[in-house]
């Protein structure tokens, strides 16, 4: 696994399920940054410059029907969070956003996320 550094002008991809986007608002929902009992303390992302394309990243993760959100590292840092490279054998572009420990921060992350690929919708949305 090749180590890399997160750059200030990096952009990050976050996989989004159909239940984690609001098609009416055109936005990600705050639940996109929850895991287990609440806010995810280590939010898995991928670094854009290390991924061939967002569509390919979904295919490689065997989640071709999922959507993809994009966040700018500068915006993430401005929320008081950290981004750390965590390359994995099967995902060399893997990184994590650290420090999201409140619903407020998850909502702020949703606000700065651009949905660049919409998931396939399997069920009705409200």
């Amino acid at each position, binding site marked *: 696994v090749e180590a890399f550094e997160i750059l200030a002008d990096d952009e990050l991809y976050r996989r989004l399920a159909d*239940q984690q986007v609001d098609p009416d608002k055109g936005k990600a*929902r705050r639940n996109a940054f*929850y895991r287990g009992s609440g806010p995810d303390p280590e939010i*898995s992302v991928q670094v854009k410059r290390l991924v061939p394309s967002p569509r390919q990243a979904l295919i490689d993760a065997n989640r071709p029907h*999922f959507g993809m959100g994009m966040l700018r590292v500068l915006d993430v840092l401005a929320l008081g969070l950290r981004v750390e490279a965590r390359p994995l054998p099967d995902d060399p572009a893997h990184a994590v956003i650290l420090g999201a420990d409140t*619903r407020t921060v998850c909502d702020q992350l949703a606000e700065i996320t651009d949905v660049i690929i919409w998931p396939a919708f399997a*069920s009705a949305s*409200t």
Partner: protein
Amino acid sequence: MQVRVARTTVDRDVLLEPVLQRLSSLEALAEDWDSYGALPPTSTALEQALGFCRRVAELLGPAIGERARPAEISPLANGGVELEWHGANLLIAVEVGPEGEWSYLKKLGSGPSARYEEENLAEEAMLRFVQEVLLTRS
């Protein structure tokens, strides 16, 4: 476990029909629906969420109409459900945990200047809180 969201007479009201449809659709979610290990909503969370929506609709429907219905209903990774109401420049997200625990996030405004408040409350206190906020800020 397959759960059926039980209907009552009041649910035939147009106010609650979309809520029933949405909660019923969440029953079909499978484990790992978010690809990061999320659990499907529990029967407790779904039933509590529906019961809360009924009470809000009964209390506030006559005063604020369709705004008494949650604008959004989302599953949570822990098997809970989130109900979101919108008022003028305001959002209240009520989280119903997998065992029926209650908490909320209140947001005033949007973007970088938004102000937030979050707290855990008992169901009755949550109902009073939602009532107070929606009636004064609708």
